[in-house]
């Protein structure tokens, strides 16, 4: 699904050039649940953002389903991003002015889904995540765990093939964190490829593979479990 060859990301800092990522070579198969770990400043989030096409690399090659992303223009990159990717943030990043329902609906609006279809898709997801009763509340009326639940619901509403999560449980206490990780596991079992960034060893154990980044280099890459067989739903 994903192939990175000698991927680099550098930024100019004053007169110096700083490498955030250096010569990254990586392959991710469909159905994997990859955890990226490493100390602060190792380049975890940068890697995640590049995979998610929110940032561009400054060198090397990135193939997504054999398409050379590093050669595409922004419009085409956005299209791929839009079609295949879902994002979950540490700080949830829900839109304050929109209700739970509307927040979840937002990705569908940008994909021009018809109003009738939108209704049934959102209703489906609300049901599946057990948040039907909360649908008319605003984000600030929810607990952190509930907000992240909405965040995940929003990230998968358009059935992405790749779910990218940046410290999804970082702002949650452990009980809520477990709930989110269980959800991730379940999504992965259903065939969604997941890449998460985390500091937590415990969260890493939900995945199939752990990549350790230090100073922009891959220090360790270890498969800890087999890719689950896809459970059809």
């Amino acid at each position, binding site marked *: 699904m994903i192939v990175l060859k000698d991927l680099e990301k550098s930024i100019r800092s004053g007169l110096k050039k700083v490498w955030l990522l250096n010569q990254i070579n990586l392959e991710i198969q469909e159905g994997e649940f990859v955890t990226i770990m490493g100390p602060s400043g190792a380049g975890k989030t940068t890697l995640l953002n590049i995979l998610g096409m*929110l940032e561009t690399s400054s060198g090397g090659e990135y193939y997504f389903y054999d398409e050379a992303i590093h050669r595409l223009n922004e419009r085409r990159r956005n299209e791929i991003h839009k079609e295949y990717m879902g994002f979950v943030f540490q700080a949830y*990043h829900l839109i304050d002015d929109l209700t739970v329902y509307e927040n979840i609906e*937002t990705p569908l609006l940008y994909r021009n889904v018809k109003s009738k279809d939108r209704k049934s898709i959102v209703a489906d997801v609300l049901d599946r995540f057990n948040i039907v009763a909360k649908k008319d509340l605003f984000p600030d009326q929810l607990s952190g765990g509930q907000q992240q639940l909405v965040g995940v619901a929003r990230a998968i509403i358009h059935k992405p093939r790749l779910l990218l999560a940046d410290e999804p449980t970082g702002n949650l206490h452990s009980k809520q964190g477990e709930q989110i990780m269980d959800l991730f596991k379940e999504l992965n079992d259903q065939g969604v490829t997941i890449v998460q960034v985390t500091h937590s060893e415990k969260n890493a154990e939900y995945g199939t593979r752990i990549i350790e980044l230090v100073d922009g280099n891959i220090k360790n890459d270890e498969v800890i479990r087999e890719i689950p067989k896809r459970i059809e739903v």
Partner: protein
Amino acid sequence: MMNTNFLRQISRQIRRHPLFYGLNLLGLGLGIACAFVLLSYVRQEWSYDRSIPDGEQIYRIGTNFMDMGGFAISQEKLQPVLQEKCQAVAYATRFRGSSGFTFEADQQTFPVDAGLYVDTNFFRVFPYEFIEGQAGDALVTPDQIVLTEEVAQRIFGTGPYLGKTLSLKDEKSTFSVAGIVRPFPGKTHLPAGAWLSVAPQLSDDRSWTSARYYTYVKLNSQSDKGNLEDFFAQLQREEIHPQSAPNTSFETWIGGSQAVHFYVQPLQEIYLYSDLNMDLISGGNPTQVWILGIIGVFILLMAGVNYVNLSTATASARAKEIGIKKTMGANQSQLIVQFLGESLTLSLLAMVVAGSLSGLLLKLLETVSGEVLLSSILDGTPQWLLLLGFSVLTGLLAGAYPAFHLSRFQPVWALKSDSMGHRKGHLRNVLVVFQFSIAAALMIGSLVIFRQLSYMQNSDKGFQHDNVLVIRNFNDLGTKKETLREMVEQNSQVVTTSINSRMPAGYNLWRATYQSETMDQAISLNGFPIDEHYLSAMDIKLLEGRNFSGDLATDTSNVILNESAVKALELEEPIGAVLNDDRRVIGVVSDFNFESFRNQIAPIVFNYDVDGYQLAIKLTGNDLPGFVRHLEDSWSQLAGDEKIRYYFLDDNLAELSAKEAVLSRAIGIFTVLALFIACLGLFGLTTHATSRRAKEIGVRKVLGATVSQIVVLLSRDFLSLVALAFAIGIPVAWILVNKWLQGFVYRIDLNWWMFAAPAIAGVVIAFLTLSYQSVSAALNNPAEVLKDE
């Protein structure tokens, strides 16, 4: 598919940030209202006579002969000459104005205040739509009349009206209705109400030097103004010159005071640009139209700037949302649509505010300026479309920058950064400077206009004009004139009385040609026929020689000059000098401003004439109402039914500066509004800036900063912007007011304080605007601010 989620979102945001949106709505609404009122006024002033079919082919001919100045009326014989000899002319018409008619029908009287005496070509040149009758049949005999439908309805009730009869009050003649017309839909300088035949008034006057009729022509479609002007050049050379001055060369004649000139005025420019004497209605004021139109555009820009500034200043609050939406798959164009949708929604809300404010504003403008500048505001579809157009345009223009600016944010960056408001501050600063520069120029401009106005109203004009009452129909008393004068003079309030035929500021055409011995050619000068009391009644200073004397019969051929006339007649020793027709100069008076301050004081020749048609009464001013009662009593004893008509000289002088008075007050209002809009924007920006710096303020206070130090810290940046704005606005204003003042021969000198005072006032007002936010921020308890770290 259009995504309408933003409507829901914006309504929630309005509820969440009422101050931000309240300021924006008020500012935008007020700006749109100002621009709407001002540009509606411009539109109205430009719309005159544009609804007349083929109007661009219609011209009026004005004339000037004997150096009397330009007149809107022209010679009686001009119309037949044009109709018969000018190839370019399809139809020529001549007509006379009327101050109105009083009709009688069924023993009832109906005043109609708009009427004309016209010839049979009139309705060919001006194709009014005939509801009854036909243009070709109307007014072919003098006992016919054409009415507008509205007038006919008022007099006769229901139609059809054709053939019904009415008569003119106080006249035996009756008229039968020969046509009913519908007035032109738009504004026009032509009065429309009733049309009578001009034929009975025609006198077969063949002179080129008398004028009584308005002459309008409609050119045939192949001809233009140039053809008409060529015709007049030829007419002057081949007909008028040989007839009137066969012994002088054409060049001498055309350059001298005996020449006859013509003006060709396009119909659609008459209202706004014609400044000829005897115009049908007092025309528009192009300077005022331009000034107010430009102010309208600038105020709208200022309101738009507020929107841009407040939107970009609060960008940090929106950045997160943009980042999220982009991550969720929104592309830039979808976000642009959202932001433009928001600004359009806001501007449509502002339109509602503007619609309600514009009526109030118009009322305010009318009350303050004392003139109906604009006859209607939200009247008819075009006006509504204008308002809608303004609002949509403002929404798009004001929304465009924030939309493109905000939607360009890179998602990662937008999500990370919570300090977007700090960035791009340059543009906001530039825009604040822009706003206050305009406000500064307006403040200075209105101050200068106000000073010039009060100079015109209050400065010494070289004569005394207060407490002077003038009876204009004094001549109606006939042989009893002297009796009334004696009765009046018995009143203890009367200082003196003077019989004359011309007062300062009055509308008068007394002119005659004079020539001194040293001059080659006579020149045309103003004549003031006066008696021996005139100079003392008006307190006009005699510099040399003597006044007229009632005892000397020879004084009828003597004259008194003002200083300008002495110069114009090239007299070195004026007293005793002899002019043409044995007129001897017996006195010289100092110059006085008897016309507008726009004009150089003109030369005056005073003649001795005890038989003038009006009586000027100089009063002590102790009890004016008492005197007026006394006067009216005396008058009615002598004159019977005839009503007295009089005016106070001061009122007539005020007319001379009426345009400036209206302009001064109108600009005053819009200056205040512009400043208010600029301050609204400033208030919004400081609100944002102080909330952004709340933590910094808290820390500084903990470290020992005093309240005043904090206030200075918070105000300094914005105040220096305002000061910079004045530094830019002052030279701009200087250029503009200087140019405006050039229009006056007698004008104030520009003084440094006229620029300094508005600048100081502007900075103080800006500081007061800022201080509410900065003081309350400075007074906050730092613990409150810092605790939610």
